[in-house]
């Protein structure tokens, strides 16, 4: 037959009409064993700002990558303080896909994330602090260089400082260079830090 023109009959029908379904019904659908039903529910709930708490609670337990993805996309669209509160605990998740999804989402909510940065960087778990630095590494917020400067000045963990150093190579201004030199002194026995500080300073100076 080769080329045929699409006919009305060949167009798949629309999905279940969600207009009459309420938030509770969609939230209940998130418990379905059928991935497509959960994805459709997540899509519908993404248009309901009041559902943020329920969606975030579900996200931590959702196993399907496609459902996770549409939930995160919906949360990015809402980008509210409630969304940030719901996503922050995921920085401590053992699930790398979920954690990275949360990091990418948070990177797109600079104004909403800003009030939480101090607490994120003070987390007792150094891994969580590294992921907090990851959030800052692509956060479009003018305070980022200062937040990162505080990390390299104050954080006791070498890996957290190394992550911040890496981010400062891109985001840092010349004012941060003295803090980097002090970092090199603080970890004078760590060859990697010496190398990374030199590279970051060169990058920041632009020569």
């Amino acid at each position, binding site marked *: 037959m080769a080329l045929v023109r699409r006919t009305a009959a060949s167009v798949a029908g629309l999905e279940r009409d969600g207009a009459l379904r309420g938030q509770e019904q969609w939230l209940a659908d998130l418990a379905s064993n059928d991935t497509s039903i959960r994805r459709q529910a997540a899509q519908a709930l993404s248009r309901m700002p009041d559902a943020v708490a329920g969606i975030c609670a579900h996200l931590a337990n959702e196993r399907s*990558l496609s459902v996770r*993805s549409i939930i995160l*996309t919906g949360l990015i669209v809402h980008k509210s303080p409630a969304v940030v509160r719901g996503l922050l605990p995921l920085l401590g998740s053992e699930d790398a896909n979920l954690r990275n999804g949360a990091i990418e989402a948070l990177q797109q909510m600079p104004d909403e994330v800003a009030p939480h940065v101090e607490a994120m960087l003070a987390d007792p778990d150094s891994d969580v602090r590294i992921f907090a630095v990851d959030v800052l590494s692509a956060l479009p917020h003018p305070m980022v260089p200062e937040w990162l400067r505080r990390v390299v000045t104050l954080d006791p963990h070498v890996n957290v400082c190394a992550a911040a150093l890496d981010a400062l190579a891109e985001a840092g201004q010349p004012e941060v260079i003295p803090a980097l030199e002090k970092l090199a002194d603080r970890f004078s026995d760590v060859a990697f830090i010496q190398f990374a500080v030199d590279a970051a300073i060169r*990058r920041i100076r632009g020569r």
Partner: protein
Amino acid sequence: MNMPLAPTTPVISDEEFAKFCEFFYRKTGIMFDTQKKYFAERRITDRMARLGCATFREYFATIRFEASGEEMQRLVNQMTVNETYFFREDYQLKALVAGILPDLAARRRKGQPIRIWSVPCSSGEEPYSLAIYILENWADADRHDIEILASDIDSAILAAAAAGVYTERSLQRLSPDLIRRYFTRQKDNGYRISDDIRGSIDFSQGNVVDPPFMRTFRGVDVIFCRNMLIYFDDQSRRETVEAMYDCLSPGGYICLGHSESMSRISSLFRPRKYADSIIYQKPFE
């Protein structure tokens, strides 16, 4: 007004250019090697002049920290050259007939059409190229029903697509034989595509960020979405890809433009390599 650069045109050092390249690549997937420095530098310095930035450092801070991302998007627009013509980026058309269509055909139930969607279709060169290329290069074309859908947000450009009249420049990649068989020369020197091909394309007007419009596309096997997402902001890009995911059948494919990469938008799709092209496949989940 486009102000000419003053004699004190700011110079971007190699170190600054390296920093810019890493950042720009992370954000867009577009990579500049040192040979392209002049190309990129001219566009950056143009944007700097327009914004009144005295140094590259000042300009870089703008694109790095501006929450709206507006200046970054303007720069992307400057860096990308978009021109449409028949058989553009034909390595993807080769991938279509060498790998994608055989794969889809092998999984097809009898009588089930293969549905290909060109969006945005602009003035029609892409959907018509798909039709011609398939007819000319896929030996099994006659054994399957192939639907080609084509959409664009711009109703004027869509009307031009449906009219199917092109300049010689648009046809520059086609052999004289293909032009002779698929086009008719017009009195004004334009070329009109054959009625058979024109009538086989289902044109529709709509916006990919409009959910009701996107819900009218289901069971699509291949989406050609080239050189559009790069002009979207992060959020719209992500929403559009999610919507396209729902448009596709399990195992369906998305073809992006040469400077676009799905890995910067979504991890939902699996990269596949066909005929030297990276195509993105929806899992069968």
